[in-house]
């Protein structure tokens, strides 16, 4: 019986409380930056670190805290490539697409990674395992081509080296 009630509760009450809990957590993060001049970017980074993305509810809460319009805050969130409105995959692969990496065969590495992951740049695998993103320079231009896999930097990539990285990520 308890199990059935539990299920029922999850079905009816949980979505509401989840939303409220999310707003509560968002308020907590925003409050950490009270009094900071120009806090919007630090707040957004902190929210993304906490939630993995910037939940829609964050926009109005930041607007309220900073006494700015929701349109302005939405404009900031959507302007910067870093801020996600949806969570990323379990792993994020960022491949550098800029000139120095191009000059060292970055294109061949990119083709290989796209083919093996079955993804184009900007896409997340259907099972949520990997997100593939372009990045324009990691400052590793003398050890090119370069990539960042989650928090790990990788340089001097070749298709073979990229294959080993991809194989670790695939289930």
């Amino acid at each position, binding site marked *: 019986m308890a199990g059935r009630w539990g299920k029922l509760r999850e079905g009816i009450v949980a979505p509401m409380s989840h939303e409220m809990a999310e707003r509560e957590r968002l308020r907590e993060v925003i409050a950490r930056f009270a009094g900071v001049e120009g806090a919007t970017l630090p707040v957004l980074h902190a929210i993304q670190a906490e939630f993995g993305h910037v939940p829609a509810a964050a926009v109005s809460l930041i607007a309220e805290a900073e006494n700015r319009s929701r349109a302005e805050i939405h404009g900031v969130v959507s302007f910067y490539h870093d801020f996600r409105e949806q969570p990323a995959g379990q792993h994020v692969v960022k491949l550098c697409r800029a*000139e120095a990496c191009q000059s060292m065969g970055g294109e061949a590495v990119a083709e290989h990674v796209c083919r093996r992951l079955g993804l184009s740049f900007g896409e997340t695998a259907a099972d949520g395992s990997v997100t593939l993103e372009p990045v324009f320079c990691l400052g590793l*231009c003398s050890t090119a081509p370069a990539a960042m896999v989650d928090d790990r930097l990788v340089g001097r990539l070749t298709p073979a080296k990229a294959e080993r990285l991809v194989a670790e990520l695939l289930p």
Partner: protein
Amino acid sequence: MSALNVPLTIYVPQDAAALAVGADAVADAIRIEAGKRGLHLRLIRNGSRGLHWLEPLVEVATPAGRVGYGPVEPEDVARLFAEGLAEGHGGLGLVEEIPFLKRQTRFTFARCGVIAPLSLDDYAATDGWKGLARAISLAPAEIVAEVTKSGLRGRGGAGFPTGIKWKTVLDAPGTQKYVVANADEGDSGTFADRMLMEGDPFHLIEGMAIAGIAVGATKGYIYTRSEYPHAIAIMNSAIAMARDAGFLGGNVMGSGRRFELELRVGAGAYVCGEETALLESIEGKRGQVRAKPPLPAHEGLFGKPTVINNILSLASVPFILHKGAQAYADLGFGRSRGTMPIQLAGNLKQGGLFEVGFGITLGELVNEVGGGTASGRPIKAVQVGGPLGAYFPPALFDTPFDYEAFAKAGGLIGHGGVVVFDDTADMLKQARFALEFCAIESCGKCTPCRIGSTRGVETVDKIAAGRDVTANLSLLEDLCETMKFGSLCALGGFTPYPVLSALQHFPDDFARGPMPAAAE
């Protein structure tokens, strides 16, 4: 080792370029091997010397100096110890004698790769804080005069005299002023800002404190990229340590003057490297450029007078204050005084950081210093100054590295990034990429950049497909003229440099006949 109480000192860089090629695994292997051999190991994680083709570059302290080994793989470590690494046998010999390093004049990067980045003792022992100590003994106008006399020009790319910028802020009325360090190093082919923050963070702090005291600013911001997580972590630690030690805060080095410092992180927008977009971003807005005037020196961050300099400019200042303006100005070429940290990247045998007085030619840089291409194929083009810089063919390799000489040759030195391409490069593709990049990164405020970049990509695609090539080439040139003279900032204004230089120097790559449909 004979004496167990004398530690064996080994350096393994923790610079991002070294980490990307496995420095952590090498450090672990060294710890394990030293343990097996019962050696008393002192492992120091330094910054990078900038000899990036040798990374991970392991250095061993010996009575004669530091001996280098590289590039080292974790599997090599046991063998290197067996061959006498602990005594400095084998390897590359003394690191300071490696021609790539020996040929440099390191003012700004003197400590980078030498010291432990977060050691206040190391910093102080290598002339650290001496520039700041002299600055607080001078009147603000005297500090500014010293910087002006050195001939230092903005290292971000525009080459504006730093002293004049500082004087404008010093003379501007107002009680609240700011110093902002532009470390939003987004140009492909550049990594000097990153290396400095990771390898010698107190140096930037010292330069900023001097700037603050010189212009009467009590607060400084460093704005860097989210793509640089290691630099962010080290810089934040360094700021906290410098504050605790009294080099920042309410009483800088006992001078009674206040200077606070805060690091801000961008969010993946290239255009925020443009100074006014950067200021907007710190204020919490979209990174859209502002029309000038007003100059940031008059109305900058939060509307207050603001010095905004590239971090390499700010990091040049401690040397100038410590050794004197003349010592700095003695080096250089024409109106470009002092040294430039040049970043050699892309398809080069020996890539890395090369700090040298202005005047070295592009050919010397890529052929002699860089050792030619990594692929062993002939060099086709060299892009200097990032994604907005021109492509130079070998015919222009006698161009000296100097703001004016590069402008005269139809290019720019920008932030000092040099990216080499071998003869497999397709310059039409590179021109297309320049326009595509501009379209992705445009802030959208002005039409030539926002729309022109997209129309440019379409036009290049038509040329690639062999459609009305002559007409489309002249259309592309015309579009570039509009972008060059009609854009609000350097993003739209300089994107024509790579496009037009590719067109001018490599016309064959644009002379496409109609292609079969399948290849399009």
